[in-house]
């Protein structure tokens, strides 16, 4: 009966190899790939929101024809508005109460010019914005990776502002990192053609403009030159209005570019700005870098534009993916990276299996020499044990890592321990003059408790490791835990039944131990 159960346990292991969906997963350290942990700098999202609120407040005031002496964001994400005259002040508070109900007025202080009203975003609201930013970043990154085409990516939140990304089998890690890490804030801004670039480069750009650069790469030498541009701060249109971005090939120069399409509102705005600024230069800025700054020749209707820049097809394709997936709500920073090349992974598997075979064989030989017939039983139990671990890994869809292989190897050494404890006990019982059958029974029943006790402690460690460990270490915890459970089963149930079988057939059984 027990052997049958054992067989039932073992059988799925053999089938597991046949079914692809139940194959043992290999960890990144064995199959190669990239593990990244990103930190979403979501406090930047709060800053952006406050910045936008300041802009909207000004617009509302202008609409209601009220005057203010300055509204600005403070470094602690509060807003200070300076107003004078009862009409303006009352109008302002009315606007805040009506249109900006998430803001609360912290203090009103009388100053020489009038009154300073300090507004703040409640902590709960700020937390909300941060959480949304992280979630949106996760979604955006997932979209980008899906479009990039990686098989079986694993993307998940880790804590409240970290994103863990696992890309198995990826080889062009730099490209993947560029694709994932770009904020992709796209904006259309006018070039300030009257300002003095030289003085701006010294750190004093004219008010309302910033100094940004265009990266120009020489196709032959690969030399990168930075071309400075004075860009007006006002954003005329941003990436939020995009509906599509595709790689196109310029028929004239045979160069790839990214064709973008705006939604209806965006198309209207684009038509207006191009119409109003003919013969001026419009800069296309992505993450504070100027991609191109063409001179507007005519009003552009229809909501289509193109981003050129000297990129190759691959770069153009990645840019299109990023633009389609949308911008990250806040910049991200790579805070952990682990990349393993495919050849190293293959080497690790080869060496892992090699040491497993050699170690296993040595143990098997030793047991046969030391315990003869009983040793053979222990060896059978050992082989079944390894099969059980494999089956367990497949059944639980656990991941096999390099430390995981080490865990299996360790289990080989530990699995026979249980048998050693039992056999030594049986030898003691035999020496005290008991018959073979009685000795076997006494040996198993007395050793069982000891074996349980001894293995529980290692099992505790495996559970703790599983709880606290990450990646490869978790893989070790899994194989160690499975190995202990399997060895308890094989030693206490399987070995016992083999003993019983060999002893039951004979009238005066002898024991080879």
């Amino acid at each position, binding site marked *: 009966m027990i052997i049958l159960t054992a067989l039932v346990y073992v059988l799925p292991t053999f089938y597991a190899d046949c079914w692809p969906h139940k194959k043992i997963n290999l960890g990144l350290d064995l199959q190669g790939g990239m593990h990244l942990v990103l930190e979403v700098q979501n406090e930047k999202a709060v800053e952006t929101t406050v910045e936008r609120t300041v802009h909207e407040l000004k617009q509302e005031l202008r609409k209601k024809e009220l005057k203010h002496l300055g509204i600005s964001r403070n470094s602690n994400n509060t807003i200070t508005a300076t107003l004078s005259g009862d009409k303006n002040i009352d109008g302002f508070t009315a606007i805040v109460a009506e249109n900006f109900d998430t803001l609360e007025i912290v203090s009103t202080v009388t100053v020489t010019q009038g009154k300073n009203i300090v507004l703040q975003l409640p902590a709960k609201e700020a937390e909300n914005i941060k959480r949304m930013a992280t979630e949106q970043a996760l979604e955006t990154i997932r979209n980008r990776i899906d479009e990039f085409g990686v098989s079986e990516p694993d993307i998940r939140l880790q804590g409240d502002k970290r994103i863990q990304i696992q890309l198995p089998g990826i080889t062009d890690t730099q490209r993947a990192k560029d694709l994932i890490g770009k904020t992709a804030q796209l904006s259309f801004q006018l070039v300030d053609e009257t300002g003095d670039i030289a003085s701006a480069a010294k750190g004093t750009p004219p008010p309302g403009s910033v100094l940004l650069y265009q990266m120009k790469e020489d196709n032959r030498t690969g030399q990168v030159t930075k071309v400075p541009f004075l860009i007006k701060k006002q954003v005329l249109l941003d990436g939020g209005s995009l509906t599509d971005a595709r790689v196109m090939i310029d028929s004239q120069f045979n160069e790839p570019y990214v064709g973008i399409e705006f939604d209806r509102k965006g198309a209207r705005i684009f038509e207006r700005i191009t119409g109003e600024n003919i013969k001026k230069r419009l800069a296309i800025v992505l993450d504070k870098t100027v991609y191109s700054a063409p001179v507007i020749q005519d009003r552009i209707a229809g909501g289509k534009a193109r981003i050129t820049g000297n990129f190759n097809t691959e770069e153009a394709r990645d840019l299109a993916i990023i633009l389609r997936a949308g911008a990250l709500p806040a910049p991200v920073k790579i805070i952990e990276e*682990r990349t393993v*090349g495919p050849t190293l992974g293959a080497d690790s598997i080869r060496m892992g299996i090699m040491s497993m075979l050699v170690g296993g064989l040595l143990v098997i030989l030793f047991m046969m020499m030391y315990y003869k017939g009983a040793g053979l039983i222990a060896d059978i139990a050992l082989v079944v044990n390894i099969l059980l671990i494999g089956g367990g890994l497949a059944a639980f869809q656990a991941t096999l890592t390099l430390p995981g292989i080490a865990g299996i*190897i360790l289990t080989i050494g530990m699995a026979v321990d249980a048998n050693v404890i039992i056999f030594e006990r049986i030898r003691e019982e035999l020496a005290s003059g008991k018959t073979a059958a009685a000795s076997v029974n006494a040996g198993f029943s007395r050793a069982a408790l000891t074996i349980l006790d001894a293995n529980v402690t290692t099992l505790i460690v495996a559970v703790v490791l599983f709880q*606290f460990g990450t990646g490869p270490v978790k893989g*070790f915890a899994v194989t160690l835990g499975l190995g202990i459970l399997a060895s308890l089963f094989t030693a206490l149930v399987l070995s016992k039944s083999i003993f019983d079988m060999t002893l039951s057939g004979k009238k005066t059984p002898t024991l080879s131990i």
Partner: protein
Amino acid sequence: MQFIKPGTTIDFIGKRKLGFSFSLALVIISLISLVIHQGPNYGIDFAGGTLVQVKFDKTAVTQDIRSGLDQMGIANSSVQIFGKPENNEFLIRTSIPDMTNQGFTQAITQALENVTGSTPEIRRVEMVGPQVGKDLRKQALLAMFYSLLFITIYISGRFEMKWVLSGVTAGALMTAVYFLSIFNMSMPILITAALVVTLALFWYLELKYAMGAIVALIHDVFITVGLFSILDYEFSLPIIAALLTIIGYSLNDTIIVFDRIRENNIQSRKLTLMEIINKSINETLSRTILTSLTTLVVLFSLLFLGGEIIHNFAFAMIAGVVIGTYSSVFVASPIVLLTDKKNR
């Protein structure tokens, strides 16, 4: 076949002073090494930094690689041969964490190709930011703490049949640690404090088996850590896993002896505790040695054939198993005797 003949009687307990002096010497040497090296040598997992494993198709010299890195602006990096010299594999380490962002792979490939004249293959890149390193260090220590805690509960509950008492002890410990952590105490201090409190409690409550087991555990882990410090090996996440496994595994032998002490205690009431312990160690000696031996066989196979990445892990395990086997005979059992009130 038999290594240890039945009826062997070696006076282990009589030689306990020798064992204690030896252990004390090892502990002191470990402590001195740790003080000299200013704590354990944390690898990039815990200290933060960048590690690159490169393989060249032709012979390359460490000096060239270093000059290439200097040109890249990564001074203060350590370059060492990884594995067998004929493999032309090198490990580059630097404490600068977040430099893998901008075109790093191309840049380093280019720089190394320029100085060595052979194409490098970047086989492994690991970058851990300082915050992540700090988090991992905390997690590792927490894992150690919880393993010790749960094992303590199990041992004292199982061997003394005092589940309630051990549960209360554990509860008190966890509360104490929680309160201390509010005051931002550093983790090593917390754990040391927790251990001291545990040992004091065991001594006071005369939980002799638990005392013996825990002292042996601390002994094993501390000396293994000390050995790593002496050899200047790095602590990485897998090494922590090895240390925890040692905690679990080194107890196996101890428990086998303890189980026998308990059994003999019931059967032969005329003998003194000292005689019982001696008898039990001798009776279980062959399995103590055999179980460790089979484990050591596979671990040595892992050490020699498992490759460079797993090398230190195997080394830590081997050290732990050897020390653990020794301590189950020469540390854990004599401590049981010492904690027993009649022998104080």
